């Protein structure tokens, strides 16, 4: 099964706590996942200040600054993985370095009903 692991963290804590991961560590972990075949895609994201939100209503496109939801924890990156089942996905998610300072939401992918 495919799972999307969404990495959430408070942005001011992501890089500043004693347990905060360094970029080298994240790179190393994702490279390991690619080598094992478990990783389909994954990227880190710029801070939410760089985000815009796009909506289309009645054919009109509107663009607003900032993220869609004002929450304490922000989306900081994602891993798209292939795992045997949820137990394996949880194990791989637990290894994502920012899990130590933020949280990882593990979501199974849905096949479009077409």
């Amino acid at each position, binding site marked *: *099964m495919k*799972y999307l692991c969404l990495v959430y963290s408070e942005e001011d804590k992501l890089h500043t706590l004693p347990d905060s991961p360094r970029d080298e560590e994240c790179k190393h972990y994702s490279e390991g996942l690619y080598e094992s075949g478990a990783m389909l895609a994954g990227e880190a994201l710029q801070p939410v200040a760089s985000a815009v939100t796009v909506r289309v209503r009645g054919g009109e496109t509107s663009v607003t600054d900032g993220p869609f939801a004002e929450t304490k924890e922000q989306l900081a990156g994602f891993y798209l993985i292939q*795992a*045997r*089942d*949820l*137990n394996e*996905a*949880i*194990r791989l998610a637990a290894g994502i370095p920012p899990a130590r300072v933020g949280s990882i939401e593990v979501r*199974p992918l*849905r096949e479009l009903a077409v």
Partner: protein
Amino acid sequence: MRNGNDSTIAARVAALYRSDSRRVLATLIRLLGDFDLAEEALQDAFTAALAQWPRQGEPANPRAWLVSAGRFKAIDRLRRRARFDASREQLAQHLEMQRPESDDDASVEDDRLRLIFTCCHPALAADARAALTLREICDLTTEEIARAFLTPTPTVAQRIVRAKNKIRDAGIPYRVPDAAELAERLESVLQVIYLVFNEGYYASAGESLTRTDLSAEAIRLGRLLLALLPDPEVRGLLGLMLLIEARRAARLDAAGDPVLLEHQDRGRWDRAAIAEGCALVEQALGSGRFGVYSLQGAIAAVHAEAASAEATDWAQIVGLYDVLLRAQPSPVVALNRAVAMAMRDGPQAGLALIEAQLDAGELRDYPLIHAARADLYRRLARPDQARESYRRARDLSPEGAQKRFYERRLEILESAVE
């Protein structure tokens, strides 16, 4: 093949249903990979047994026959549905190709353990885990579970449907966790069993006649789990439940109101349950692992072995709470430790700890901390503070036996003043 007339066969099939339907179900869920399909297949298999065994005789291995019949019936069902949904045909072919593995006793018991871990997976909500476990493993009906939890039947039915959907959609596996995950996943299973036990034990007495005995179900589950997975904490939890259950006859007075441990008639405690519980706890701690259930079991064992509240080895209880507090730092454990300190070193010692907790903002809305504080003030002959704390405990309690208990305590204090 054994032959028999229809009525003896029917009785035999009914007995097999009681003894083995959960085992057959567990194996069918593994083979079919779908809870609902497996439940339908289970009913189909027993129906087929009732129809065929009077003519053909009972097969040599009835359980294997039922699994095999259930599997073929499920493939038939998928084929019939394939007329509307082509993907069903693929699934049916896949199942037909699969060679069922051996049906020896060990693999059947593995299936039961797999089912327990699936029903108690931490990805499911806590109330859904309990409902699913009682439904699939204990074979309670949705109505029985609803009555036991004082929850409307449609709510419980919906919880079970959602849990099954999540098992399918999120890929919750049907297997015993690997060694690396086992401890954490087992914790989730033990939590479900203890929740079911407490739900039964603290249920109000008046309704116990119509409610399924959840404590007994939890103890049965504990025994099953211990047989399947002889882990020290499973042993510790079973011991703990037996030691608490042993007090059942003494814990309520004639009016159905709770009796404090120190006032219970210990002659009414179930000695056989205590002996078994103590032995289990001793074995659990003998493993050298001090799990939270084993430690709570050890505390219950010290109480169980004491002739009275005064004769209790409070120093040992405080020591056990010290270890428990390190294993499970929680304000409620700290409160229980404070009460034990009061018994060991006098009310003042306990009161200082409780006041410190309240000052730190802990448990301020928890009725039991105010009740404990009230009792210590009473023992220190400070009735004004005792009354104030009992009022607080009463006001924070929901309607029921516990609230009535604090009201009675208040009345006793008032009459003592006059």
